[in-house]
């Protein structure tokens, strides 16, 4: 009975949510560069520059019960966090041509499904939380402004 009810609820959830997976991050830099702040952009440089090097960052995290995230598998932690910190270590004034990819974004339907499975497990006395490994990969060119 529980199984049938869960199935119907999941099917309704899927039908109403669709299959879109959306991942968003905070704003990067707007040109021109402001003061000593690290310039971060998915495009080119607004000023003359010298390339210092290249970085690839892969953030790993775990999503628990569909909604609680642990770790660094999100755009802000990888771009404005680790990527920016590593660029500063290289002596960079900015990172341009940033590319990013959330390797396995979760749809709302998948999240709800995991949450329901977890709730069902707990209701049945099983201490089992549904988890999903999450990965975000980011690359960027570290630059130094010439002016």
């Amino acid at each position, binding site marked *: 009975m529980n199984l049938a009810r869960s199935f119907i609820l999941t099917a309704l959830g899927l039908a109403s949510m669709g299959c879109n997976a959306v991942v968003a991050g905070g704003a990067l830099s707007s040109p021109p560069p402001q003061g000593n702040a690290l310039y971060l952009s998915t495009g080119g440089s607004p000023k003359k520059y010298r390339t*210092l090097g290249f970085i690839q960052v892969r*953030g790993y995290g775990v999503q628990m019960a569909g909604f609680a995230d*642990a770790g660094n598998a999100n755009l802000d932690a990888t771009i404005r966090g680790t990527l920016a910190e590593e660029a500063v270590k290289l002596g960079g004034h900015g990172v341009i041509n940033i590319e990013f990819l959330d390797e396995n974004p979760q749809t709302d339907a998948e999240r709800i499904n995991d949450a329901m499975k977890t709730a069902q497990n707990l209701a049945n006395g099983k201490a089992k939380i549904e988890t999903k490994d999450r990965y975000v990969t980011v690359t960027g060119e570290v630059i130094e402004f010439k002016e």
Partner: protein
Amino acid sequence: MRAWMMALALTAVGSTGCTVVDKVRLPAVPGGNEVFVTAGDIQEPHEVLGVVQVSRSGPLLFGNIDVVGTDLEAGFKEVLLPEVKKMNGDGVVRVRYHMTQYTPFARIAGAILFVFPLPSTVTITGQVVKLKH
């Protein structure tokens, strides 16, 4: 028992770094003495010599020992730059790159299951150019 395992797993996530970083220092400017590489375009007049894709694959022994060099450092300096010089190019524009990055957990698993080395690859693409002097 499962609760304990979950708690241990969460502790492992919390105590170990969840982010893997790899970088290569490659300072050069168009017109300098060294081959330059940029992910963008250049303003200097140039001739396009061709497009190039380089890759290098190899095993990570014990999950950690990169025998042949499959990281960004090796990919750029040991594979891409020699190829650009062979093509008589001055630099590479619009470069794109990707390398295999394993989490610390996967590397530990690779060390334990050492008879199965982890596969690793670095791939770089770009457009080789020669500056017009």
